[in-house]
């Protein structure tokens, strides 16, 4: 209570300065005049009375000053004075100021940036309304594994689900987008029911959500853009809504833009369109078999997940009453938020990496601050005389501390603002590097990051700025004033703190150096790790076919054959191969039955990543093949089924045995055994930092090729790259209906961005140690 009234009285004194002044004036005048009147009543002449009254009152101005002091009215004024003086002092030694500000900018900027990344990854609450009420619904297969449900299951749940307030469905879609009608880009997209955003409880950043009627065929020519898509492809056009763009050769209207906060949850998805369930379900067996609808639902208030579980259990049983013993067809309700809070091992690794970086940034800041503190200490020695003179003139130590601390805080704030400005400029690079480590993280210098920068600046100013101030104001007047030289009196105490600070910096620097060395080694390791393929002079193109003219798998196969033949005839092209997933793109997975080397044993069932490739794929990528043979043109639909496995597969499932001649089969067609005819060397299919995993390859001609596939093209010399990359060629053989991915090279480095960022940070930290040599003298 008293604190509050004190604050109010201070505020009044500060804000109503002139009123307080005039009141004070009136009050003191009244006193003097009342006294004078009393004296006059005692017979003193008026003039003489006033003179005596003033005399006995003492210095009126001094009394006023003390009154102001009592109210704290001078606080702001003296702060302004200190700031002005501080600025003057900083300007007077530009070299010192520049070094200190730059050092601090590095430290504080790095920390603000890392804070932004960490904030976007873990600290920010999920961007959904009441995320605890959100659930995912999965279906199960015969083995009890979770899968995305079928459209029929979605419809059944939506019709009968009583525990849910909203049930939304999403499906995947390729979008062929053309900005100028000459080249097409394949943007991944999500088809969503109009109740998807309301279910999540998310408002579009711009524009509106889909309307209910837009879920019907013919009225669905509308899209919502992701934040990244809007930024990158439409230059963050604030008037984008209502504009028309061409997607899938159809003119559609942009009705909204999603907020950036959804980015981490729907990575790489650029275009959201209404899910028209009937036409989506009838798309048929395009890729790995069945069309799927991912279900996200919002529980009714007060409904527990267990209740919803038992209800979906009933719905599922009503759907397949015949097979109670089988594990398949159950609907399983899973906590939505839980999946984001507890990611798999890769996610956890990435998170650990980010936290480690945050730690490194903290160390960098400590070094930077210690650095500046020792510079300030060194300067404090030079200003000893100034401090001594001022305290001899009656300046109290508290007042002096306040002034010097203000000066230092000014320095730290300058550094902090510069750091924030630099971080703002490099938002995109840092976002890129950060999302390379933990997908979906981003840096945006917003209020939170700004506040973090400010708090870091002020706290470090308070702590590290205080050390030199403490020493500077511990002055022995006599000695300091007598000493002639400005450097003569570097007291042993302040020398000791400087030594401590320098030792502190060197120790931290060593920690960083060792960390940097280790990281650099692992970076080299990743860079030089046998990639398993040679990415130089390889171009890639991703093609996606529409369903209609190429619905028949054999028509698609024929088209691929034709494409390869044409590309191979182009000048500069050495070879070309086709795959359904390029390196670094991941792959489909399926349950495989794997023959066990010991006779009579039952086959193992394992979830394995698999790819469909053309015969020339491995030779195009120059992937070594230690055992067996590559696929041949005669491995066709009619001939006996074959497979190729990678070395990890061979090591895991055929230890000590030659796997050639053994068989694998898809669990859903268990009698079609495919003979292993070759073993290729390992390469990482998704991410250069991940562990090796078992992979199986099948000939394109023997699996159902999907509508989307990629071509890897090896050219003879890097000078041929530009020629071949002319995208015209690919239109020529498909009657205009293809899309090329925008990327025309296999990435060999970009996924290491996270590593590079860490190395950069550490090197910054190490470099920021150097100014400390200045204070070593």
């Amino acid at each position, binding site marked *: *209570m008293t604190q509050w009234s004190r604050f109010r009285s201070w505020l009044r004194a500060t804000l109503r300065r002139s009123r307080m002044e005039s009141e004070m004036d*009136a009050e003191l005048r009244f*006193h003097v*005049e009342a006294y004078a009147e009393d004296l006059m009543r005692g017979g003193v002449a008026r003039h003489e009375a006033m003179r005596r009254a003033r005399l006995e009152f003492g*210095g009126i101005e001094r009394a006023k000053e*003390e009154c102001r*002091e009592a*109210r704290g009215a001078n606080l702001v004024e003296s702060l302004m004075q200190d700031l002005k003086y501080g600025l003057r002092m900083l300007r007077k030694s530009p070299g010192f100021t520049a070094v200190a500000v730059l050092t601090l900018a590095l430290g504080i900027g790095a920390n603000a940036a890392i804070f932004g990344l960490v904030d976007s990854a873990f600290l920010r609450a999920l961007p959904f309304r009441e995320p605890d009420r959100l659930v995912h619904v999965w279906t199960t297969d015969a083995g009890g594994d979770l899968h995305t449900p079928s459209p029929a299951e979605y419809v059944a749940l939506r019709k009968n689900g009583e525990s849910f307030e909203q049930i939304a469905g999403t499906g995947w879609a390729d979008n062929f987008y053309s900005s100028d009608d000459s080249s097409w880009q394949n943007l991944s997209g999500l088809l969503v029911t109009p109740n998807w955003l309301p279910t999540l409880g998310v408002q579009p950043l711009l524009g509106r959500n889909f309307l209910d009627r837009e879920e019907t065929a013919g009225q669905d020519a509308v899209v919502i853009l992701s934040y990244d898509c809007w930024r990158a492809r439409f230059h963050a056009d604030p008037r984008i809504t209502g504009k028309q763009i061409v997607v899938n050769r159809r003119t559609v209207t942009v009705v909204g833009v999603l907020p950036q906060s959804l980015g981490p949850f729907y990575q790489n998805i650029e275009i959201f369109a209404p899910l028209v369930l009937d036409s989506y379900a009838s798309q048929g067996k395009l890729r790995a078999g069945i069309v799927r609808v991912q279900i996200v639902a919002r529980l009714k208030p007060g409904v527990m997940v267990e209740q919803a579980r038992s209800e979906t259990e009933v719905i599922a049983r009503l759907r397949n009453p015949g097979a109670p013993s089988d594990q398949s067809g159950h609907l399983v309700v899973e906590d939505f938020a839980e999946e984001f809070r507890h990611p798999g091992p890769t996610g956890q690794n990435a998170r650990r990496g980010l936290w480690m970086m945050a730690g490194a940034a903290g160390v960098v800041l400590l070094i930077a601050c210690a650095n500046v503190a020792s510079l300030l200490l060194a300067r404090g020695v030079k200003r000893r005389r100034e401090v001594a003179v001022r305290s001899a003139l009656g300046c109290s130590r508290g007042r002096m501390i306040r002034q010097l601390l203000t000066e230092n805080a000014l320095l730290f704030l300058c550094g902090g603002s510069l750091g924030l400005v630099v971080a703002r400029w490099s938002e995109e690079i840092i976002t890129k590097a950060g999302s390379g480590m933990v997908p979906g993280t981003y840096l945006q210098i917003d209020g939170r990051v700004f506040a973090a920068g400010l708090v870091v600046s002020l706290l470090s100013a308070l702590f590290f700025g205080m050390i030199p101030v403490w020493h500077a104001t511990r002055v022995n007047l006599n000695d300091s004033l007598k000493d002639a030289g400005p450097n003569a009196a570097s007291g042993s105490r302040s020398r000791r703190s400087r030594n401590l600070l320098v030792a502190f910096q060197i120790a931290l620097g060593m920690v960083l150096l060792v960390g940097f060395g280790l990281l650099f080694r692992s970076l080299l390791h990743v860079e030089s790790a046998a990639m398993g393929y040679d990415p130089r002079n390889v171009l890639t193109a991703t093609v996606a076919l529409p369903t209609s003219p190429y619905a028949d798998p054999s028509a698609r196969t024929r088209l691929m054959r034709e494409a390869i033949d044409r590309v191979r005839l182009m000048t500069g092209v050495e070879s070309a191969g086709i795959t359904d997933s390029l390196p670094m793109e991941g792959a489909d997975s399926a349950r495989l039955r794997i023959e066990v080397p010991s006779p009579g044993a039952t086959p193992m069932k394992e979830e394995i990543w698999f790819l469909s490739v053309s015969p020339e794929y491995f030779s195009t990528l120059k992937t070594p093949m230690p055992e067996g043979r590559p696929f041949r043109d005669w491995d066709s639909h009619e001939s006996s089924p074959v497979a190729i496995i990678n070395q990890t597969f061979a090591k895991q499932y055929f230890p000590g045995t030659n796997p050639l001649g053994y068989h694998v089969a898809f669990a859903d067609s268990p009698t079609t055994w495919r003979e292993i005819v070759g073993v290729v060397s390992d390469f990482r299919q998704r991410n250069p930092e991940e562990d090796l995993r078992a992979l199986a390859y099948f000939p394109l001609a023997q699996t159902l090729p999907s509508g989307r596939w990629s071509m890897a093209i090896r050219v003879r010399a890097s000078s041929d790259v530009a020629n071949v990359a002319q995208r015209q060629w690919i239109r020529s053989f498909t009657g205009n209906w293809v899309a090329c991915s925008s990327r025309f090279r296999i990435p060999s480095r970009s996924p290491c961005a996270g590593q590079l960022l860490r190395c950069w940070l550490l090197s910054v930290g190490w470099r920021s140690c150097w100014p400390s040599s200045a204070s070593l003298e």
Partner: protein
Amino acid sequence: MDKQLDLLQGTLDMLILKAVSLGPLHGYGILLRIQQISKDRLEIQQGSLYPALYRLEHQGWIASEWGESENKRKAKYYRLTAAGKRKLQTETENWNRMANVMAGILGAKPEEV
């Protein structure tokens, strides 16, 4: 008349609180009242009275408002707040205890030790 005593450090606040506890007063009135009840035995620097008043008001122990003086002039009147009343009470108790202790010590005779 006895020789005037200089104020002990920190006692001015107590005197002011006591003076205004007897009824609202303006600054000059407080001075007069202290002189009156001390029977002119205390010397108060007039200039130091106002910083003390401002400080006490800042602490919330006294409150002020403008009113009219005996000779029809505008004057600022101070009165004791509830917090000030409590403060005065504890200060008085402290003072009495201290005075007793001091008196006991200073009055000690050699045979009592």
